[in-house]
């Protein structure tokens, strides 16, 4: 289960709407223990894909390390990644699965015609052959 407080949800929705028609993405920063992840804040990534940012996001190792160091400095960890699907449902794509890391929560926000829609969370199965839905709590 992943717990994303309401203010963080609003932040992600605002980012998703703001970057439409391009995808937005960022790190979910928080704590993890015994299968429960609690997000505390987000660390937006610049979408580093040189082209077709409407359909793809890319965050390089340097940017990742920078986010991780930033999280560590506050005693937190990167526990997942969020990104938006402009004009697409909030379900992971094949591309998402092929590039996914295990353990991380992948929170996906659907943005329809610039308006933020549903939000879901997913975790890669150990076999890498599918994403399993993860319970998303927004206290």
């Amino acid at each position, binding site marked *: 289960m992943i717990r994303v407080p309401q203010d963080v949800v609003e932040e992600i929705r605002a980012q998703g709407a703001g970057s439409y028609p391009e995808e937005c993405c960022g790190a979910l920063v928080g704590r993890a223990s015994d299968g429960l992840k609690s997000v505390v804040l987000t660390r937006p990534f610049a979408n580093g894909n040189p082209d077709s940012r409407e359909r793809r996001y890319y965050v390089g190792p340097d940017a990742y390390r920078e986010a991780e160091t930033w999280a560590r400095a506050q005693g937190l960890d990167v526990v997942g990644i969020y990104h938006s699907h*402009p004009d697409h449902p909030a379900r992971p794509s094949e591309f998402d699965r092929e590039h996914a890391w*295990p353990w991380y929560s*992948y929170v996906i926000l659907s943005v329809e015609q610039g308006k933020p829609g549903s939000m879901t969370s997913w975790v890669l199965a150990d076999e890498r052959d599918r994403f399993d839905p993860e319970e998303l709590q927004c206290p």
Partner: protein
Amino acid sequence: MPVKILIPTPLRSFVGGLSEVDVEGQTVGDALRSLVERHGQLKKHLYAEDGKLRSFVNVYVNDEDVRYLSQGETKLGEKDVVSIVPSVAGGVGPSTTASPLPLSAEEIRRYSRHLIMPEVGLQGQVKLKKASVLLIGAGGLGSPLALYLAAAGVGRIGIVDFDVVDESNLQRQVIHGTSDVGRPKLESARARLREVNPLVKIETHEMRLTSANALDLFRGYDIVADGTDNFPTRYLVNDACVLTGKPNVYGSIFRFEGQASVFATADGPCYRCLYPEPPPAGLVPSCAEGGVLGVLPGIVGSIQAAEVIKLILGAGQPLVGRLLLFDALATTFRTLKTRKDPNCPLCGTNPTIKHLIDYEAFCGIEAEWVNAAAGEFEIAPVDLKKRIDRGEDLVLLDVREPQEWEICRLKGATLIPLGRLPYALGELSTADEIVAYCRMGGRSRKALQILQEAGFRKVRNLTGGINAWAETVDPSVPRY
């Protein structure tokens, strides 16, 4: 070879929750194979079906992406740390894998104004990324140097300094801010540079550069940029550059005038070719004594930064064999031709200097220190205060300049600037007990010598000058 591998958070559940794992291996490839042998479940996450590392798995040795080293063949040494670093990709698009570029997409966006110039281009930017530059000093010249070199994407920047930020630095040392006063300069500089460009590596060396440590330090960098404010360190930097074969990108500033050049390249002159001997100690005042226009180091340090970048790129004509003189009052730039001196004791045909020497002694500074140590003629601010409070009859002699006198002065003092003192001895009496002071105690010590040579016996020097008085006796006196 025992090697440590740092495991990123998403993979820790496969290695028993550990953040690092010790394995054996001579190369990066060996170490990773030994890791997946031990923790089999990692394999499918790190390697694709074709046996290659997955496109979103990045491997670093210390701070270098192995993609820029020898990939899997990269040799490992003792104490090397291997890290597995995620990159993150996804989206609704069709599945294709981007080909690896020598620069990340983030770097391409950041450096786009460099990349579109043919003189830099992708190749030049990669050269900058692979380059390393050592900056001597994080002060007036070091500020623009560090800021612009970091912003330009110079991959590794070392800075040597041991000072803390003082309020009087802020007028020109723009890498430090008001809230940094009292903080070590290196700490403040590092924080600022991280904000300017988190993609470059900053290495801080908190120490005084000496003949004992300079050579080892310089060997670790491609280029050295000199931002020092004194002659002993300037000669030390030059000599160490010649002895280690590193170009010395030189800059110096005083009041409204600055100089810049590139010394110690293979075919160009060194600083000693131009200035074989230092000026007599005390003849050329430092910026602390003589002042400096705050924007001047901004201009000269930026010129140095441009020279460093040109040397890295191999573009244009660097200031080799030319000394650039800038006058901010007249707004003129002049260049003088300089030549390699075949008789230079350091870089000439028959060099006599083959090791670093004692630069304080070479610049005649030691003698002055010894003098200063003779405490007999010194008086501490607190002791002076006691004697004034007791109503003792003392003549307070201020040897600073009139514009300094306007900032602050001791009550009842007489102003005779040091330069006028030899001609104004008649205004003083050898019968009086005289306490001379200046801003920090240097000029008044020279005043004491003049007085003593003229037969004055009852003379004292206020240790640390009026600044020390402001600090320890009367906080209402401004320090400057």
